[in-house]
């Protein structure tokens, strides 16, 4: 099997599912002729035509609102928000309608759609192009939030998101789009919505992350391992909401120590929720306080300073070391 990057993994998943399911369609700004600004939808327009690959006017609220209508009528729209920073214009459609329609109609109407959006920093971009605001969506009941971390899980999770019966916000870590390649085994897909992935099993400490921070987390783990020979258990969260509480709790009960690494600002983020879950179900097993490594609570700085503010490998290394030595 050839190694591919995350963009190709996502693109292949879209090609495959559109070929096998004619209720799936793609819409968004520049997704057709241009193939998307990151080329995730490349080739779809040529292959499936303008009926199934819609270049839309620039109107995020209408993009999602129309997708909600299509979904209620039995289609499976996969919409692209060009950057997560532009997605807030559709928030009222997501919060006010997509997330609630199943509840409002007691299941008569459902909204099986996917909102893809590149997110995250580290690509030297302009304002609104570097944030990690997964918590906005995760705080909304009725919306699932999925964040792949690598080519191997990106395509399979996108397929699962499209097949899911509910609205899924699918956040793509753009820093990881083309930064590394992996093989993607379509036959042996073990990735599912709502399931975290235990990347490495160990007994000394649980380390949880997601998205682009996974790579930095693994680098930090390798650095500490080479110094101390500890055995970490590494969890790639993959689904932010609904969270895979069982996997987190089982791991922390075993290791007694935990570090959570999130790219987003510190306060009120997914790390806070993970720590609350541990507090609820595994507090008595803890040997050390759970540490979180995060961005600071400032507006995401433009790129001259962004590297100073985003969590670094050395921060993760330090948090792991201190938690192990507590």
């Amino acid at each position, binding site marked *: 099997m050839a190694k591919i990057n995350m963009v190709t993994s996502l693109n292949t998943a879209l090609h495959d599912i559109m070929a096998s399911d004619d209720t799936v369609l793609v819409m968004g700004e520049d997704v057709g002729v241009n193939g998307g600004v990151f080329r995730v939808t490349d080739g779809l327009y040529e292959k499936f035509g303008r009926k199934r690959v819609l270049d839309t006017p620039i109107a995020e609220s209408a993009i999602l609102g129309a997708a909600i209508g299509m979904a209620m009528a039995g289609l499976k729209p996969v919409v692209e928000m060009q950057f997560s920073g532009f997605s807030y214009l559709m928030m009222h459609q997501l919060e006010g309608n997509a997330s609630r329609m199943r509840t409002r109609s007691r299941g008569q109407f459902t909204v099986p759609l996917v909102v893809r959006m590149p997110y995250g920093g580290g690509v030297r971009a302009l304002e609104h192009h570097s944030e990690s605001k997964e918590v906005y969506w995760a705080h909304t009941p009725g919306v699932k939030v999925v964040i792949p971390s690598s080519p191997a899980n990106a395509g399979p999770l996108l397929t699962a998101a499209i097949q899911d019966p509910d609205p899924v916000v699918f956040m793509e870590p753009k820093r990881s789009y083309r930064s590394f390649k992996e093989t993607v085994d379509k036959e042996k897909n073990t990735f599912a919505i709502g399931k975290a992935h235990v990347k490495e099993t160990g007994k000394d400490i649980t380390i949880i992350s997601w998205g682009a921070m996974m790579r930095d987390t693994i680098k930090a783990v390798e650095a500490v391992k080479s110094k101390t020979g500890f055995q970490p258990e590494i969890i790639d969260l993959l689904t932010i909401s609904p969270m895979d509480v069982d996997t987190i709790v089982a791991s922390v009960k075993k290791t007694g120590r935990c570090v959570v690494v999130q790219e987003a600002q510190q306060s009120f983020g997914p790390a806070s929720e993970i720590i609350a879950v541990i507090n609820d179900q595994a507090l008595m097993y803890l040997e050390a306080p759970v540490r979180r490594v995060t961005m600071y609570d400032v507006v995401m700085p433009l790129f001259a300073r962004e590297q*100073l503010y985003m969590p670094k490998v050395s921060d993760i290394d330090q948090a792991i070391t201190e938690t192990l030595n507590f």
Partner: protein
Amino acid sequence: MPLKTIDDFSIKQLHILDENGKVDPDLEPDLSEDDLKKLFQAMTLSRMADARMLNLQRQGRLGTIPVNKGQEAAFCAPILALKETDWFVGSYRELGARLMRGETLENSLLLFNGWEEGSVNENNDRTLPISIVLASQLPHAVGLAYASRYKEEKDTVVLAMFGDGATSEGDFHEALNFAAVLNAPVIFLCQNNQYAISTPLKIQTKSRTIAQKAIAYGIPGIQVDGNDALSVYQAVKEAVDRARADEGPTLIEAVTFRMLMHTTADDPTRYRSDDEVTAWEAKDPLVRFKAYLMKKGIWDEDLQKQLEKDCKAQIDAAVQAFESREPFAPDVPFDHVFGTKEDVIEAQRARFLARLGKEKEHGQN
């Protein structure tokens, strides 16, 4: 009862200078020689600065930038109709307009190299920073305009700029409607450059013009040749005069063309032909304005050479100042989260600075 027509609408189009710089004498605006030269100088500086920035970006000396070439008449001429005390509410593709509003070129270089410090216009506090999320600045223009009347500034108007893509956003429609209902002194100037990244106007809107969108909101709308600085100036001037006289907002569509890429991260060969671009080269706003000035006898090749030399010197100086500048303090982002000092933020600042100090000690920075 038979159907009856209860209202009729039409949209006018204004052309003053043709592509060869020949002016329609009946429509020629009343501008002084100094103003005409000032406008041409601003357009030329914008063109040359834009080219230099593109060059710097390609050399890795600047981050991603939006590119302005071809739209100089559309964004520079309106500024000539403004007073310094009027508000300018822009988007991100109006470099020359910002320079005319007192912003330094060094600022643009800073901003597009990732320093928020480049957003601060120290020479004019009625120019808002660039706005990236399309049309989101337009309701602000309405609020600024309303506030000026609220504060009994009877003379202030607001000029808001945006592109054709922005007219699909709800904020555009909501702002026009708000401005109309509040009779707010706003001039909405759309730079219709035919493309929103890859999306051509014909799939952005089914309307024949953007100007006609004004009709739905009960305000005047006019289309002008956006590559003709005189047409743009004249339409804006009339709209400014009406706004100053509390006769309400206006929508102006300046028809122009984005000659290059959306930003340096874009590849326009994927979605448009060279022929289309070449056809617009013949309509270059600088070429025809220069021809007009020469026909008027107030410009010649010596003045042109001198102007280009001056612009180059100004750009060189800005690049030099930008590249030799000391970095700003790393912890400035903590200064501006809130207007109040908050313990949560200050504790994080202390942690941030301690970490930086430690990294310096270990030679990691």
